[in-house]
């Protein structure tokens, strides 16, 4: 069979699910894992690979979704799955895609579009692996999706602060004490916005939350269909790390969006499109106060009114950006005539 460059660049055609009743019933992430009760990241894995379908290879960097999912002799993965190093989700996606492409181009493997998804946690993605993800997003000839499941701490290793942990949160590396109430003084990285802004040839960057499952799956399907490297950032409430009743996972995801802390959007070929409650906020619907979200979580239990006010002000600032809640730029005010 003659292989052309075009055929090895082809992606699967994954049309969006038109409503929850149209979602396929097959599961490719099933029983065999031991994630915590109420773990949203496990749900993200399930939805991610359900959206991708059976002709998919998944690479998982070190983190909760490695250690808790694949304990030898059990595996929840129905599709081929392989571990990669903590900072290697970008390289794993690129290497797997390049290997497949080379073999198909040279006629050593049957040519077909195979989805390549590499996932990472916020430690692996927003901290250690950011450079490799950035590099992969510049290699436009290799089709892959990197999905960052952000539970806002190194949750697998005992809940330590990451570059994606919200300001002031209590983690085992940032415990509130008598001398210092706030040990973690950094504001959360804007990972999706940074990657969208910094990689002009990456065709698709999106944010998702599993509280909105169909929207999330459809963003995965678009990311896998559009061609080239793509990136999705998922906000995953974590009962253990955030310290709340596991039954509240969905509700906390919704609140993060309604309070305007985590916006839902996609950037497709440079065009920003807001989704759901985020879209309503952009169109003028008031945001819920951040205290409604923060005070439901033990990790913010030490917050004073002063802390809540600071947090609210920082979130308010996000909505004054030139592209609200996406890119932290403002235009220079016009000089007075």
């Amino acid at each position, binding site marked *: 069979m003659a292989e052309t460059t075009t055929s090895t660049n082809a992606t699967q055609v994954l049309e969006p699910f038109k409503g929850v009743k149209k979602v396929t019933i097959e599961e490719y992430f099933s029983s065999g894992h031991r994630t915590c009760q109420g773990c949203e990241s496990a749900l993200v894995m399930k939805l991610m690979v359900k959206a991708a379908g059976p002709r998919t290879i998944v690479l998982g960097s070190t983190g909760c979704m490695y250690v808790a999912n694949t304990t030898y002799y059990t595996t929840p993965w129905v599709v081929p799955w392989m571990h990669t190093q903590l*900072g290697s989700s970008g*390289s794993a996606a690129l290497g797997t895609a390049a290997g497949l492409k080379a073999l198909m181009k040279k006629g050593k493997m049957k040519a077909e579009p195979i989805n390549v998804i590499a996932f990472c946690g916020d430690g692996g993605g927003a901290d250690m692996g950011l450079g490799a993800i950035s590099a992969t997003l510049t290699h436009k000839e290799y089709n892959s999706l990197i999905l960052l499941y952000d539970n806002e701490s190194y949750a697998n290793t005992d809940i330590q602060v990451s570059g994606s942990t919200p300001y002031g949160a209590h983690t085992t590396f940032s415990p509130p004490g008598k001398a210092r109430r706030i040990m973690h003084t950094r504001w959360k990285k804007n990972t999706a916005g940074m990657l969208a802004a910094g990689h002009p040839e990456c065709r698709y960057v999106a944010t998702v939350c599993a509280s909105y499952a169909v929207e999330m799956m459809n963003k995965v399907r678009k990311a896998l269909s559009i061609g080239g490297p793509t990136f999705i950032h998922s906000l995953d409430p974590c009962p253990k790390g955030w310290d709340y009743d596991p039954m509240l996972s969905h509700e906390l995801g919704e609140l993060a969006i309604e309070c305007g802390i985590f916006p839902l959007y996609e950037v497709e070929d440079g065009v920003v499109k807001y989704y759901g409650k985020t879209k309503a906020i952009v169109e003028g619907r008031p945001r819920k106060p951040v205290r409604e979200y923060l005070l439901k979580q033990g990790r913010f239990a030490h917050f004073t009114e002063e802390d809540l006010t600071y947090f609210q002000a920082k979130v308010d600032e996000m909505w004054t950006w030139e592209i609200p809640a996406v890119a932290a730029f403002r235009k220079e005010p016009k000089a007075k005539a």
Partner: protein
Amino acid sequence: MTTATRAGQAPAALEDKEMLISGSEAIAEALTLADIDVVTAYPIRPYDTVMQAIAKKIANGQLVAEYIVAEGEHSQFEIVKHASTVGARVFCGSSGVGWAYAMECLVVTPALRVPMVAMVGNRALDDPGAFGVEHNDALFVRDLGWLLCWIDSSQEALDTTLIAYRVAEDRRIFLPIAISADGAFLTHSQAITKVPSKSLVDKFLPPYNRGDLQLHPDNPITVAPQVNEDWVIEIRRQNNAATERAYTVIEEAYADFRKVFGRGPENPWFEEYMTEDAEIILIGMGTISLPLKVAIRNMRAQGKKVGLVRLRWFRPFPTEKLVAALSKAKAIGVIDRDYSFGSPFGSGVVANEIRAAMYNADRRPPLLSFICGLGGREVMLEDVYQVTDLCFNAAKTGKSETKTRWLGVRE
């Protein structure tokens, strides 16, 4: 093909093309003949010359492969590791602290039984900066399941690269191989090299077949799950068993290489130079062989019976053969182009490995250890004469000097 021999010349030699190329360029010729699928590059001297040579081959259409310039050595090695798991033949490489930057990936590659072939253009580690050769970079991986060899000529660079793919991709092995080439002395020095035809290489080197370990939707396996204390020791032992099988597989590969190409050493493990009647045997790895051989010829002219063992394969370590070769000497002098601070006797890595290998030998000649040529400093004939004189003294007294001598160092 097999019948057309003439004056003892192997048929293969008639088909060889002769080229004036460096060690790095010779490896690039071998990679083209091996039809590699994915290669990743990142700049650091002196190994990067191989990537420059491959880039030209790809640009000129002599080789079809995915050529990826990574953003650091960590990614460089991870990318090809993953490409190999879907069934691609891969190549990678680095030097000095670049190799160190990839260390995490170098750890997992043999553990995942990935048959990557990598070139280490041996270079001194930072700090302070030096471009020249030291062997400490490649030696980082000596305990991890990497098979490790040192070469000393462009011809050996080309031949060993073909042999390395054959050995690494043998299902009995599935381990990565690092080919060490001394920075500048080999990476950048040109010599006339025989380049075989593609058809002969195809006879020697079968395609890479990942088999039931291939990551593909038709083979939905889970690779490298968390095993903890339940399984990790069994898996380590499997890895060790693969390293032990490498003794046989390497010997088979060299024997086949000689059959197909009509050249190559009878003994894959080390080169013996004038050792037959040698009272003193000197030992080294890599291009240090050149000053050693010149010095030995000069000393032979004065009637001194000196020989050289140039170690090619460091992992697996050719314990039995090496002990047999060294036991017959009256004294042996090991010259390390590496260091191991705080080690027994302050010796280099090779000297201490040989001490360990000789421990149970029936006959243990005195062993003297030397460190020389670090950072690419030239090894002078005077240095070699000094080593040999000390070895002759030790042969007389029958005693090993325990201290390690550093040669050619300003005092």
